[in-house]
């Protein structure tokens, strides 16, 4: 397996991010039916699923190098996007180990990990070929790395990461690397309990979703990770849609017209996985973000039609919460042209192996 990286693409400024046809076909489209509502949609994170992205626990794709660079830019501007409370050091090492072991096993051409032993005090050597990194360090000794272990490894990974400490039958968000978030602030939320950091989500609390989810997560077992998909929309392929930088990207929401919606409006899907960590008993919560424009998605006829139906029947509270209010009419006008009303099979699979030509071609 070779991945053709696109090291020059950008997630800001000129927004040169583009998906290849293969990337579109493996997009984790999140809507199995024509309507959407919150549910406890958690399932085992096995090496299988309706898209290729599920084949490996930590998916690496053509955007890897560019995403790592975008993270570095965001951290340079705002170091507070990385936070780890002092009691989280054990969980930091757990996370580094989990990522290094999985990446090197699943992508041996890209990453390698050589260990002189499994325990703290052993010398490890990590090689990251796409980013040109070779690092020898003592596992368990933070002074032998250029920065804290959690920061070190998540600077070399796609997606955001939170680590939740488990105590008093609750989960506390006590560490995070968060540079590609859908409008939530790590600086504000760090240290919060599970119910607190989900506080602003509408409708789901009343449906008991979070109580059930928390109960489930407290029982999460080592070696049995779970996953769910979450979604929102973004204008332009921008990873850093944080509240911190909202003054920069907020105005883009007013720039959408029925003519440019296909290019500008992106479906933002998060593969959220949850992992019990072995030494700390904390839970690692990676949030891996995939972006596809309406134009990309409409090249899979089933997806274009279904997205039109989901968005046109979305409860008003969710439209507001997800920040779609200002541009949803323009996006729907664009999508309606790609929906002939035909009945669609249940399921998220693309149902095709080649794409229809781009609308803009």
């Amino acid at each position, binding site marked *: 397996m070779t991945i053709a990286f696109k090291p020059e693409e950008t997630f800001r400024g000129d927004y040169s991010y583009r998906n290849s046809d293969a990337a579109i076909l493996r997009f984790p489209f999140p809507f199995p039916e024509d309507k959407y509502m919150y549910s406890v949609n958690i399932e085992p994170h096995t090496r299988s699923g309706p898209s290729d992205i599920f084949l490996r626990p930590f998916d690496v794709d053509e955007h890897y190098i560019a995403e790592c660079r975008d993270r570095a830019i965001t951290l340079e501007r705002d170091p507070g996007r990385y936070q780890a409370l002092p009691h989280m050091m054990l969980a930091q090492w757990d996370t580094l180990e989990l990522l290094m072991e999985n990446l090197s096993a699943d992508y041996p051409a890209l990453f390698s990990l050589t260990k002189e032993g499994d325990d703290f005090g052993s010398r490890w050597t990590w090689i990251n070929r796409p980013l040109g990194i070779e690092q020898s360090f003592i596992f368990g000794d933070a002074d032998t790395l250029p920065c804290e272990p959690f920061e070190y490894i998540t600077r070399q990974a796609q997606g955001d990461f939170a680590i939740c400490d488990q105590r008093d039958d609750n989960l506390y968000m006590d560490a995070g690397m968060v540079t590609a978030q859908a409008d939530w602030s790590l600086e504000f939320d760090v240290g919060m309990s599970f119910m607190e950091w989900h506080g602003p989500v509408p409708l789901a609390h009343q449906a008991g979703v979070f109580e059930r989810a928390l109960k489930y997560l407290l029982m999460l077992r080592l070696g049995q990770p779970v996953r769910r998909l979450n979604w929102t929309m973004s204008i332009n392929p921008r990873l850093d849609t944080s509240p911190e*930088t909202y003054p920069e990207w907020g105005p883009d929401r007013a720039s959408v017209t029925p003519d440019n919606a296909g290019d500008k409006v992106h479906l933002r899907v998060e593969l959220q996985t949850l992992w019990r960590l072995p030494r700390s008993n904390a839970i690692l919560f990676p949030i891996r973000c995939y972006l596809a424009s309406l134009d990309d998605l409409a090249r899979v006829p089933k997806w274009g039609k279904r997205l039109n139906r989901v968005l046109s029947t979305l409860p008003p509270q969710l439209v507001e919460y997800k920040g779609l209010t200002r541009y949803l009419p323009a996006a729907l006008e664009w999508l309606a042209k790609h929906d002939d009303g035909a009945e669609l099979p249940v399921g998220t699979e693309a149902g095709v192996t080649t794409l229809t030509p781009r609308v803009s071609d």
Partner: protein
Amino acid sequence: MMHSDITSRPTYRALEPDLAGSKHLLVIEGETLLTGRLEALTDTFAPVNDKLHTWLVGAPTASSGPGKVWHLEKLVDVLDLFACATRDYGMGDRLYVQGTEPFLWSVTTAASIIGFGPNQVQLHHAGSLRRRVWCTHCHTLTENVTASIVPCAGCGRHLLVRDHFSRRLGAFMGVMIDAEAPGAIPAIEEAFA
């Protein structure tokens, strides 16, 4: 107190002495003392009166109250006393606080540093609904906010004051109201008087 569907919004309670406690500390923001309140608290705390200290913060110095009463001038004096008190409090001790929300959380945070856990602390909200607001964009805290939209004390942006609350910061989240349409600022209401 205001009700909110947002679950990070704390809820507050009436103060009641926990008879299992060994030492008891009652901290009251003076401006929230209505006539008769100290007398009512004296009755409520009578069962622990001999193990109780009361810190009255910014209250008229003539006022007496439950337990042994100390007069402090300002909130910052409370925080200083906690900072100096590393040895004198333990797991069996109980803290009761009455005041506005910024007062409650400043005291709670200072107390937590010397080991007061959530189960040792009771919070009673009284007086003004004014809020401390944390700017999501420049991270400055703006104090004494009573309006639904407020200019940030740091960056000057107009912030919509949300109900999302951080105990760590003792503050509500403020988000730029006119980021999507610069200059379009809705009518400002006196929401937290």
